[in-house]
């Protein structure tokens, strides 16, 4: 063992401790207030009056995922009955019922153009379906295979690129024309459970079972920020509408808000009598409300700024596994293990 080498290691370790102290100092100097205290001057929101406007019935088994189309009226849902259903939320009609090769589906997504939907799960693949073929029938366009673990989430950037997250602890960016992996996002030390793309599409955030959420630069595949705070698996992440912050939901029974510019946790949404995990989170169009789906069959509505719970949506007979807000902010849809989807407004 070279004396020089062991000395260099010791010096590097000392430098690491020094840097950690400096980072702590810097962060502490910026901790001059809290979102909660600064929001006290805002009027508290009285009970939010949302009710069920439509019930989408048709799946025969637990629903695991849903995603709204950008046209504000259609949405796709995935169930372990082995089907993807595309619904018209205004009329409750089923526009497409797509049989899947693998029924163990955990994720689904609607392309912004409306031309494609995607899904995946325990088959470790992301399957892309073309909804607008020349022949008129829905066809498998691509089967993206490279993950060595289950597909937990997928989101289209556009008709040519999709991002996926997996139980193999990585995220991947795919080229749909060629059907190949373009980039790999590698830094989590636990199953990656969810991802959300920023409004300007330059970044995405991922949440994982290592209790951290990470912000990634899509172009360079670099992890640009890591946020800690949660005490257990993060099951859901969603960007705040401005793209400057994001919310997370975890098995530790809390949702949290993290701000990219402040590089820290800004608020925590929890209650003494909430003891179960959160499966899904979504913001209302202004970001003022945070909807969160729970294992105890309910959906809680939080005031993002003041941190208070402003409503409880009780509409399901089993776990709320997924939820989402339409692009025009006019409707919120919850999906459940009770096999139904409910549209609230």
């Amino acid at each position, binding site marked *: *063992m*070279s004396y020089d080498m062991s000395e260099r*290691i010791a010096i*590097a*370790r000392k430098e*690491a401790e020094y*840097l*950690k102290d*400096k*980072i702590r100092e*810097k*962060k502490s100097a*910026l*901790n*001059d*207030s*809290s*979102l909660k205290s*600064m*929001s006290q001057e*805002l*009027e508290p*929101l*009285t009970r*939010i009056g949302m009710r069920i*406007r*439509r*019930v989408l019935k048709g799946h025969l088994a637990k629903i695991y995922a849903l995603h709204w189309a950008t046209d*504000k*009226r259609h949405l796709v849902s995935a169930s372990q009955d082995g089907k993807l259903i595309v619904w018209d939320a*205004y*009329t*409750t*009609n089923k526009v497409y019922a797509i049989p899947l090769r693998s029924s163990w589906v955990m994720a689904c997504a609607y392309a912004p153009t409306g031309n494609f939907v995607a899904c995946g799960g325990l088959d470790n693949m992301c399957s892309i379906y073309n909804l607008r073929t020349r022949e008129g029938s829905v066809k498998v366009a691509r089967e993206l295979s490279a993950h060595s673990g289950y597909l937990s989430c997928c989101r289209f950037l556009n008709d040519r690129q999709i991002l996926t997250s997996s139980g193999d602890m990585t995220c991947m960016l795919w080229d749909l024309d060629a059907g190949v992996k373009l980039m790999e996002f590698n830094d989590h030390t636990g199953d990656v459970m969810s991802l959300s793309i920023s409004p300007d599409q330059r970044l995405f955030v991922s949440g994982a079972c290592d209790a951290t959420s990470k912000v990634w630069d899509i172009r360079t595949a670099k992890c640009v*920020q890591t946020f800690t705070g949660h005490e257990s698996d993060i099951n859901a992440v969603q960007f*705040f*509408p*401005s793209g*400057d*912050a994001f919310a997370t939901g975890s098995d530790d029974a809390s949702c949290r808000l993290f*701000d990219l*510019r*402040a*590089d*820290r946790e*800004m608020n925590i949404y929890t209650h003494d009598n909430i003891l179960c995990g959160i499966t899904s989170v979504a913001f*209302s*169009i*202004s*970001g*003022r*409300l945070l909807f969160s789906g729970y294992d105890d069959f309910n959906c809680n509505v939080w005031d*993002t*700024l003041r941190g208070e719970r402003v409503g409880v949506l009780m509409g399901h007979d089993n776990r709320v596994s997924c939820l989402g807000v339409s692009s025009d*902010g*006019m*409707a*919120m849809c919850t999906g459940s293990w009770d096999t139904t989807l409910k*549209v609230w*407004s």
Partner: protein
Amino acid sequence: MPNEMRLQRQLEHNKRLREQYELERIPVSQASTLLIKYCMSNRDVFVTQVWGEMDKSEDPFMAQPKGCCTLM
């Protein structure tokens, strides 16, 4: 693990720490102000206290749908 690898690992870790240190951050008060401003500047039909009740004609779930059966 050979010492060369240990040193390499530590140096890479330090590089990331340095990047973390140099990251430009804004104070919590400023970030809060910006978040509050965003929420208060974008119309939200679910926050009736701030933006008022939605007009019935605007509500896409009120309009009589064309087609046979619907669940209201």
